[in-house]
């Protein structure tokens, strides 16, 4: 991670095989392990939260129900009545990202949402799904949206490529937004944590000065909690918006 003069801020994103040779053969790294933990935590939260099934809910049940209603309102409010079809997918997407983001803030853990391969896979899933939904609800006629209504036909050679490019950039922006935010946050945390260790080696003055990076890291952790939630929300709501366009006639 860090030695006396160098800061390895990117080392935290390296993948290491787990379970020895079995892990190497199955290409199992700590990333899928943390995905499993994240998914397990969400399912445990829902299972233990809803186990009482009380009419007057306790705190955990109220939290589980609020999570359910929050995502349901998001899906149905944005997509419309057909949002109920996509609600489980939006719920899975939101909590997969959220739990991944928050799990990565714990010491010695791993943030799988800081890998572009993961975020791009999710973004491509959303993108392909939106195309399939468009074909299902609008047929091949959905390509008409690439020519804005009311625009002069003479501008079509310019407008259509721009619209297609804008459409194709959706998975790129969706994936890079999440990936970049997670990487940036964790790099900052690592850098300032390394500063603390470096300053601590400078003697008494260093000990005093080392308080500043610790304070910054505390503030950054709070910011990361906000960013983690915000990015999961942004990913989910953009998915909803793409699906709304797909189901709309």
């Amino acid at each position, binding site marked *: 991670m860090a030695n006396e003069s160098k800061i390895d801020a990117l080392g935290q994103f390296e993948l290491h095989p787990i379970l020895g040779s079995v892990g190497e053969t199955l290409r199992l790294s700590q990333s899928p392990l943390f995905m499993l933990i994240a998914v397990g935590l969400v399912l445990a939260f829902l299972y233990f939260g809803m186990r009482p099934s009380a009419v007057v809910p306790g705190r955990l049940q109220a939290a589980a129900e609020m999570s359910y209603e929050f995502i349901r309102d998001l899906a149905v409010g944005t997509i419309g009545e057909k949002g109920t079809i996509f609600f489980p997918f939006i719920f*899975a997407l939101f909590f*997969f990202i959220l739990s991944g983001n928050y799990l990565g803030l714990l010491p010695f853990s791993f943030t*799988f949402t800081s890998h572009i391969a*993961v975020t791009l896979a999710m973004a491509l899933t959303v993108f392909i799904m939106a195309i399939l939904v468009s074909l299902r609800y609008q047929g091949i006629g959905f390509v008409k949206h690439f020519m804005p209504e009311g625009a002069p036909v003479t501008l079509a050679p310019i407008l259509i490529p721009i619209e297609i490019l804008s459409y194709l950039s959706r998975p790129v922006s969706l994936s890079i937004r999440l990936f970049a935010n997670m*990487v940036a946050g964790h790099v900052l945390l690592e850098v300032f944590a390394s500063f603390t260790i470096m300053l601590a080696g400078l003697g008494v003055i260093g000990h005093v000065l080392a308080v500043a990076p610790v304070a910054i890291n505390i503030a950054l952790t709070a910011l990361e909690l906000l960013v983690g939630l915000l990015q999961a929300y942004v990913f989910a709501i953009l998915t909803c918006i793409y699906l709304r366009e797909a189901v709309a006639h």
Partner: protein
Amino acid sequence: MRLTPRFLLSAASLAALPGRALAAGMPQLDFKNPLLQGQVVWGALIFIGFYIILSRSALPKVEQVIKARVTRIQNDLDLARAAKKAADQARQELMDARQKAMDHAHANILTIQEAAKAATEAQLSATVQRLEAEIRESELNIRLAHDKANESLSEIASDTASSLLLQVIGRDGKEAVQKAVKRVQHQEV
């Protein structure tokens, strides 16, 4: 992606890193790494499993609990509305019965008052008649007693006067006294 101050700050911190980290490059972009490829496959499997468990088991359970609550609240509200309606109806019936009872009682009071008044009047009339009869009888008795007294009066007066005369003059003069008494009686009548 927007160039936010936060991103620029992190980019600056990355740029400030000594050579080894940057030279190694970002591990996330090492697409030849089999673990990175495996991560996507495992991630897809885990996500699909997560989605299936959520859509088949976890979320329907939450929905079931919420729907059961909504149904129960709705039923309770319906019951409360029905109870209120029944209470309002019962109250209305009570008010109607009370009004009816009041009217009935009022009518009864009037009937009783009239009956009592009639009875009192009849009793009064009977009493008056009885008193009048008693007065008449008493007057008759008084007259009879008066007549009887008048009849005895001449005899008593004659006897008294005779006694007085006998004691005063030594003889009674009974006949003269009787004539004088009768004369006085006739004068008074």
